[in-house]
């Protein structure tokens, strides 16, 4: 055996060994996709307009406050679209003062003036930045929540469009609970109650002669059901600006209220505790609304100064209280979410798919190999070895790259077998032709491999181009297919050209001048 050939065989043994090492044990090393393992795939949109509106309302509030303290009387400040507010009726005499106030509070808005009216539009680069930050914050919050759910190998990532987020939860069976936990905004606000509760929204508005002051809002809320009656909805008029929000939370955990019903206790950080202490001190004997996602859960009377501890009560079940604690701990979402796509695969269907896929792939493999052995005799065995090594390499590279095996990915295995056969057939047919043209065995093998090499490269590059676009196009299962196909194509070039040739050379090197090939 020549030195050259020995090196080739050693390389092959090393590649096979490394591949087997990479995917052993397969149950741990080969990651299964959602379609094989069961689980849920969710695509949601972050309503980034929400965050813009919050910013615009806060800016309008700051301006309103500044104008009030400087006694600049304007006709009114109204928030229009999420990124725009208008100031109407700025008195001509105070125009310069008004402009100075704007400079002082440093707004990130483009200003346009028509007569006594000003329109403020959020600067485009700020809009882009805010939207991006909002999606990132939402992503981080969702990640924390998903991690607390205790799902193994979850995926939380930005999706194709700028404002979309993809979440994949393998093995989750209670999809609705998972969705609720991900989606709940979990914005906790503590607000002072001005009046209420009222039986319906109309009567709440009537209390202000249908003209609710701009610094107040009407919120729906739970009426106290300690008496045991069915829960009813009432309406509260509360201050628009919250005394304390969920941003100042230190912790939240499920607990029990005085009637032993599930509740959620929370504690505030130092800053929050200071705000809360001052606020409660100043408002003893008034009601404090505990508002979660725009709904008043309870409105207890402030009896004394409260610092760091609070409790949310409502008609919670044990699990709801636990989940609420979870979402409060993970922080509020900066904007609401809407679901765009949801795909759930039950674990039994996943298991069935694995079985069916493995049967189909093995069936295909056995058939193809039998055919090769019958048709190409000893050379068929050669193809058998190179295709088997190809599959071993494919598994090894997938494990090494952390690629996910999906059901279409199994189809990718079958196509890889097909490509392997094709390359071998191309080579064998060419060798046969060269033999028929009168070349001896050694020359025919050399010519066969040399002539077909560029054909194999061309066909594989063309298929790789298709696989690349497939990867671009697809999510989840189809990406798995594109990955399998790509890795299979790459390893096939190695096995069809290098492995198969080394085997022929090994066979030829045993004899001085072999007269015939078994092909």
């Amino acid at each position, binding site marked *: 055996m020549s030195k050259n050939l020995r090196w080739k065989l050693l390389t092959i043994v090393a590649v096979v060994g490394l591949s087997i090492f990479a995917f052993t044990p397969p149950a741990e090393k080969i990651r299964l996709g959602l*379609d094989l393992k069961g689980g849920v795939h969710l*695509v949601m*949109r972050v309503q980034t307009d929400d965050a813009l509106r919050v910013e615009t309302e806060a800016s309008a509030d700051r301006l309103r406050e500044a104008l009030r303290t400087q006694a600049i009387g304007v006709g009114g400040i109204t928030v229009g679209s999420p990124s725009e507010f208008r100031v109407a009726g700025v008195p001509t005499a105070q125009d310069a003062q008004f402009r100075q106030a704007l400079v002082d509070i440093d707004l990130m808005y483009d200003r346009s003036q028509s007569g006594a009216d000003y329109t403020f539009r959020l600067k485009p680069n700020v809009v882009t930045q805010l939207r991006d930050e909002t999606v990132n914050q939402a992503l981080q919050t969702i990640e924390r929540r998903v991690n607390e759910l205790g799902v193994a190998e979850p995926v939380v990532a930005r999706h*194709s*469009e700028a404002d979309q987020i993809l979440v994949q939860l393998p093995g989750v069976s209670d*999809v*609705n609970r998972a969705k609720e936990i991900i*989606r709940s905004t979990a914005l906790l606000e503590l607000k002072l109650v001005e009046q209420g509760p009222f039986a319906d929204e109309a009567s709440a508005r009537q209390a202000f002669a249908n003209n609710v002051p701009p610094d107040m809002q009407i919120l729906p809320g739970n009426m106290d059901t300690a008496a045991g009656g069915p829960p009813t909805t009432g309406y509260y008029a509360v201050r628009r600006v919250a005394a304390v929000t969920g941003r100042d939370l230190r912790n939240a955990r499920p607990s029990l209220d005085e009637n032993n019903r599930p509740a959620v206790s929370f504690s505030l950080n130092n800053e929050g505790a200071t705000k809360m202490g001052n606020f409660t001190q100043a408002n003893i004997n008034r009601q404090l609304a505990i508002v979660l996602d725009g709904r008043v859960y309870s409105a207890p009377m402030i009896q004394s100064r409260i610092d760091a501890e609070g409790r949310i009560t409502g008609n919670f079940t044990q699990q709801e209280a636990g989940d609420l604690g979870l979402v409060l701990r993970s922080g509020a979402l900066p904007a609401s979410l*809407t*679901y*765009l*796509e*949801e*795909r759930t695969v*039950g674990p039994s*269907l996943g298991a*069935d798919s694995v079985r069916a*896929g493995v*049967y*189909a*792939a093995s*069936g*295909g*493999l056995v*058939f*193809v190999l039998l*055919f090769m052995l019958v*048709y190409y*005799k000893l050379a068929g065995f050669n193809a058998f070895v190179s295709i088997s090594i190809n599959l071993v390499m494919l598994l090894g590279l997938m494990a090494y790259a952390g690629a996910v095996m999906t*059901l*279409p990915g*199994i*189809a990718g295995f*079958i196509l890889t077998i*097909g490509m392997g*056969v*094709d390359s071998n*057939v*191309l080579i064998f*047919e060419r060798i*046969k032709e060269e033999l028929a043209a009168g070349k001896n065995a050694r020359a025919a093998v050399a010519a066969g491999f040399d*002539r077909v090499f*560029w054909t194999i490269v*061309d*066909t594989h*590059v*063309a*298929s790789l*181009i*298709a696989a*690349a*676009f*497939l990867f*671009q*196009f*697809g999510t989840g*299962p*189809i990406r798995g*297919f594109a990955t399998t*196909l790509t890795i299979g194509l790459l390893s096939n070039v190695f096995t069809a050209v290098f492995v198969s040739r080394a085997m022929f050379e090994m066979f030829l090197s045993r004899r001085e001048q072999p007269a015939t090939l078994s092909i």
Partner: protein
Amino acid sequence: MAIFDKPNYDFIKWRWHALAASTLVVVAGIVFMIARGGMPLGIDFTGGTIVVAKFSQAVEVDRVRAALESVPGEKVIQSYGDAADNAVLIRLPQLAQEEGTSLEKDARAVVDALNGAGLPTFEILSQEIVGPVIGRELQLKGIYATLASIVGIAIYIALRFRPAFAIGAIVATLHDVLITLTFLAFFGYDLSLNIVAALLTITGYSVNDTIVIFDRVRENMRTMRRDPLEKVVNTAVNQTLGRTVITAGTTFLSVLSLFLFGGEVLHGFAFTMLVGIVSGTYSTVFIAAAIAIILGNSQGAGAGAAVAAGAPVKVKAATARRS
């Protein structure tokens, strides 16, 4: 052993017949699709809801349909997979609601209706809900990906071979995609993500086949300088005939194994591949080669002239590589 012993069929003689036959099938397919209101799209592209429920005992589809009478919308209800699985697929069209919290409303309504109908107990095997936004996105992405992949491959062929060959390969590949779509529509498959993935694979496969023959044509052009292009191409097709039949045959049979045993989820995928493999093999022999000849002949008189006028640099490069 050999399937063909020195084959010498005159494939090229049939090129006009083949082009006519293919055009006929493609046109018939397009007419058929237009008559049915376009290619039937699955929920991946239109948006909608699919619920697959597996019952503990056999349940007639009509009983399920009756149970779902109260759920609004035009429903498709059919048995899913093997009859022994007792599984039923329920498909609902796109929600009237644009998007939002009510995305899962239809799926819930289906489950509630099944629960309330006194049917045997069931488990939900799978549930897919696609909102219209995602559907539109996927539709566009699918079309772009297919076209971009064809263009990308064509550019590669134009660089490695000749522009006329690239056009031949594009036409052959488009032909395969159209023929496959025709068969899909005819056999009542809705276009899904998996089927688009199969179509993209077909573009790769079809070109793969074409390249093998083109490679051989390029090689023959050097040894058969005096022969007309028809003869050069025909020889190449015959020389690679054994390989074409064996590869197509073995790939077809392994995909057939996928079609038969691969389970319900991959049925559409495997079917698309089966049609595509047959069409891809046929189009390589009859369409790609024929177009390359027609375009090649309009550029020069014979093979030698075509090479001289076409891409002498590339031929030289190829020669250098092989020596």
